[in-house]
């Protein structure tokens, strides 16, 4: 079973014979004892710390189909090293483009993404509403917005509704999370702890979606809800809409309510608020646990992990695009 590796410590990653070797290097440039990472257990690398590497290592990663994703000091996603595209399918490309250029076809998919996202957000709210957090008003407000989704005929209009839903949803965070206040959603830079976690988590979710798309024949740059080009891999943003409430928000509620992440895991300065390394590690661990959690799938009747659900979403999207079966967005059913 392959897994993601998260590199926080500065050091050098190199190819050693037919496997990977990590040598930690401290601030004085002193090398620590190296450890080995068996290459066949690696699905991808998330690089948060300073990493030294040479082209032999990247060639080796490429041959083994391993991607490396990079993040800057403020945990922003800065880019990825991808092994060369190994799943090219002209027919899929043509059909995917057609679904973007024909407005009717594009709207169908864009609406489904918002519909799935709204459903999963409502699911979170209902869960906490049943646990003595009064969210009834917010729930009915979002339900009201959700009924407008199918009536939209323009993507901009749909994005407006999506924005309203999300804003209303984030207003519930102050009720759900104890000990921290979020006030408003703020980005670039996020101004307080909850916002930092949302940004960090959304970025992790985006990376997972991107990675899953990479292992299918879908083109990551042709998207339906988001305009292609809003960011490099905008299809990942579309998919992330559906999975953010399931993967990210639930993880945030957990780490804050269980006090796994505490105020001293953050650092506030004039550039807003940042998550310290200690906090990042806790969050990434909780997020990874969430990805590995399994559920019994309804139509496949077998256990699948949350991460695999993202891949399955890509399959459903492929089938829709190839006119095999209509796409139904993932809606948490338990």
């Amino acid at each position, binding site marked *: 079973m392959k897994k993601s590796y998260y590199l926080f410590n500065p050091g050098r990653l190199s190819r050693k014979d037919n496997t990977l070797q990590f040598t930690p290097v401290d601030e004085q440039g002193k090398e620590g004892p190296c450890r080995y990472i068996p290459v066949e257990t690696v699905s991808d690398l998330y690089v948060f710390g300073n990493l030294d590497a040479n082209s032999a290592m990247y060639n080796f990663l490429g041959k083994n189909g391993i991607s490396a994703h990079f993040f800057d000091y403020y945990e922003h996603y800065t880019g990825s090293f991808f092994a060369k595209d190994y799943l090219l399918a002209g027919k899929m490309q043509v059909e995917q483009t057609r679904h973007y250029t024909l407005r009717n076809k594009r709207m169908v998919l864009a609406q489904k993404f918002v519909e799935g996202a709204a459903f999963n957000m409502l699911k979170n709210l209902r869960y906490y509403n049943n646990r003595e957090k009064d969210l009834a008003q917010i729930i009915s407000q979002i339900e009201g917005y959700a009924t407008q989704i199918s009536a939209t005929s323009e993507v901009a209009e749909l994005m407006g509704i999506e924005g309203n839903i999300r804003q209303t949803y984030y207003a519930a965070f102050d009720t759900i999370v104890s000990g921290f206040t979020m006030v408003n959603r703020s980005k670039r830079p996020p101004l307080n702890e909850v916002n930092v976690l949302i940004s960090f988590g959304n970025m992790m979710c985006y990376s997972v979606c991107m990675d899953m798309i990479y292992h299918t*024949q879908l083109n990551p740059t042709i998207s339906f809800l988001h305009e292609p080009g809003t960011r490099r891999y905008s299809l990942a943003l579309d998919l992330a809409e559906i999975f953010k409430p399931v993967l990210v928000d639930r993880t945030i509620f957990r780490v804050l309510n269980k006090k796994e992440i505490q105020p001293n895991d953050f650092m506030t300065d004039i550039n807003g608020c940042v998550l310290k390394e200690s906090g990042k590690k806790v969050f990434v661990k909780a997020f990874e646990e969430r990805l590995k959690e399994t559920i019994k799938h309804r139509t*496949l009747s077998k256990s699948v992990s949350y991460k695999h659900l993202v891949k*399955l979403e890509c*399959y459903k999207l*492929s089938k829709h695009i190839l*006119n095999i079966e209509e796409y139904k967005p993932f809606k948490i059913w338990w």
Partner: protein
Amino acid sequence: MHITATHINLYHVCHRELWLHAHEIRMENTSDTVSEGKLIHETAYPQRAERYREVVLGGVKIDFYDPKAKVVHEIKKSDKVEAAHLAQVKYYLYVLEQNGIAGATGIIEYPTLRKTETVELTPADRAAIVIWLGEISRLLAQAQCPPLLNKPICKQCSYFDFCYVEE
């Protein structure tokens, strides 16, 4: 478009898989069964590489061909879809014949089952292959993907998640 031995094999297993595979919608990279088969293929007969050759003829690739004895060897993991294996090897023999090598025979080897099977090309096979080729061309020209097979074998298929995921 060249019709390969894989197409012939898939035609006898699942038309949907054939259509998807031919349109480059491939899932083999995700399948443990496929990597297991590949491993068996690479490790079952370590001494073979010296004596046998890989042959590429008209879009068809034969992994192990013994030019002296005129024997095509095909290694398979299990005999679950035996008819498809037979068809595949018969197609090799047919392509060899079309390229002027008549009288070749085939052996399907199942190293994990400790079993082999010999294959010969009969006049009835030649007629059947012509029909298969026509059918495959027709299937691949279809705009619509063929329906689900819905057989027990689907569970082992690398396309299972793709085909059966719904919501």
